[in-house]
């Protein structure tokens, strides 16, 4: 009989020798795309988070390699167009991507090389899930992981429309949407995500969200002592916080890091589309259809009368109206 894994609190521990059962499963789902009234689980798992300390990243791309290996994707052989990003964007086969930005700091006159590991942020309030029309294609677990269930994905691209971070990518081959899973399959058996496991500088760490916030606070204190007065944690409130967080040396200017959004939130356009448009639209169509049917059944139809025919005869054939014909 297999033991149940415990929730991971770090990515550095090695897996146990004995196989273990997953510590969370379908029963821990709190949100399901295109599904109302999801029954809430009895227990609430400890919130997890991945913390990416941009100031410690050396841009080695070990995380990308580990991601490709664990998820068994095949991004293909790249093409050098003179930039460090490889591939040049997230793809259905590349769930995470080092984005390199060069920035001349006007205060210090130093050239700073800012490297951000891009990928799904695992929002507490996920825009992809809100936009998705396919029941069960996107789920959220109570530990914060937002996962795609490809069996239910229809490839419409609404998740792309809904995501505030431009993350999901639709495959040209199987027409399904792909993104980082936060290695939900590893996490379920007590292991941290592959990228965090592989990171040689521990710029990527993983554990409970509380631990990660505490660790981030230490790192920020350290950065501040080194002159980065604006160092801070990126855990944006607009999306309810995220389960992938960044320590940024320039928290006041997230846009420096390859366009990380300043105040991400689900676009009000998307909220309006999925909210009032849906309700009001369905109501309008329903009322019109029912109203027309009822009126059609009970109101007096507009019927051609005898004298219309007579008048038509007169116009077409020049005939005088027969008796009874009136104008």
């Amino acid at each position, binding site marked *: 009989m297999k033991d149940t894994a415990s929730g991971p609190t770090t990515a550095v521990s090695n897996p146990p020798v004995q196989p273990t059962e997953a510590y969370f499963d379908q029963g821990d789902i709190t949100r399901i795309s295109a599904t109302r009234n999801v029954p809430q689980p009895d227990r609430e798992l400890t919130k997890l988070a991945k913390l990416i300390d941009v100031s410690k990243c050396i841009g080695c791309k070990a995380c990308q390699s580990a991601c490709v290996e664990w998820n068994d994707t095949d991004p293909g052989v790249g093409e050098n167009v003179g930039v460090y990003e490889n591939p040049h964007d997230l793809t259905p086969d590349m769930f995470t991507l080092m984005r390199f930005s060069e920035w001349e700091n006007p205060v210090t006159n130093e050239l700073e090389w800012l490297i951000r590991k891009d990928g799904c942020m695992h929002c507490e309030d996920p825009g992809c899930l809100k936009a998705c029309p396919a029941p069960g294609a996107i789920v959220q677990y109570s530990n914060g992981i937002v996962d795609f269930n490809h069996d239910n994905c229809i*490839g*419409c691209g609404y998740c792309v429309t809904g995501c505030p971070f431009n993350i999901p990518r639709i495959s040209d081959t199987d*027409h399904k949407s792909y993104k980082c899973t936060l290695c939900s399959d590893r996490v379920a058996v007590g292991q941290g995500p592959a990228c965090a496991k592989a990171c040689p500088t521990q710029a990527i760490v993983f554990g409970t969200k509380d631990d990660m916030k505490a660790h981030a606070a230490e790192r920020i204190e350290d950065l501040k002592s080194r002159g980065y007065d604006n160092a801070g944690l990126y855990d944006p409130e607009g999306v309810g916080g995220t389960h992938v967080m960044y320590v940024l040396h320039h928290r006041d200017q997230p846009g420096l890091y390859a366009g990380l959004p300043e105040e991400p939130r689900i676009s009000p356009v998307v909220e309006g589309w999925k909210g009032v448009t849906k309700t009001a639209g369905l109501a309008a*169509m329903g009322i019109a259809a029912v109203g*027309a049917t009822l009126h059609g059944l009970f109101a007096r139809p507009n019927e*051609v009368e005898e004298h219309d025919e007579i008048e*038509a005869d007169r116009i077409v054939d020049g*005939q005088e109206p027969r008796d009874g014909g009136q104008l």
Partner: protein
Amino acid sequence: MARPQFSERGDHIASHEPIRVSRYRGFTRANHWVTAACLIVLAISGLALFDPALYFLTGLFGGGQTTRWLHPIVGVVLFVSFALMFVQLWRLNLPRREDAKWMAHIGDVVKQNEDKLPELGKYNPGQKFVFWGMSGLIILVIVTGVAIWEQFFPGLVSIPVRRIAVLVHALSAVAIILVFIVHVYAAIWTRGTLRAMTRGTVTGGWAYRHHRKWLREIAARDNKGPAE
């Protein structure tokens, strides 16, 4: 010969005993029904992706993936089909002075006080509303539809534009369904109308009652005089 004002050149008295007036030739009718079939498929498949409560409708097309693939293709067919219809119908759908009077008497239209209504050409303002409403809305849905067509135009517009496109697409589609309901309802409530799109002809009485100027013009053109 000058262009007829109230009728198409092809509209004619098809028979005299009883009077039948040809309103739509076969091509136009086929064109109309292709458009109608497309619109119904689009409405059902679109509604399925519009609200989760209607997602089960994807089953009619063989599942979500097929629905996602089929919807825009049918959309293109509808657009082309409607465009063909547009070039045939637009001229007589231009607004005319008498339309204002008809609109002002919309209550009498519903109450069937026919003697209070002006004489009209081939289309009444209600029909013109359906025509121009559909024309404008179909342009909106095709433009926004292409913008959100993930399979063939994934990067055509930026994501913020895409959000607006998807909203406009949904709103226009709802409006199209409402206009569609008006269209179907009016065609059924006004008895004798459906045959114009099935057999292509209407009765003389129908033409006299609803489109008198149209009938007069055709009758005047039917210069062979009364049959027999």
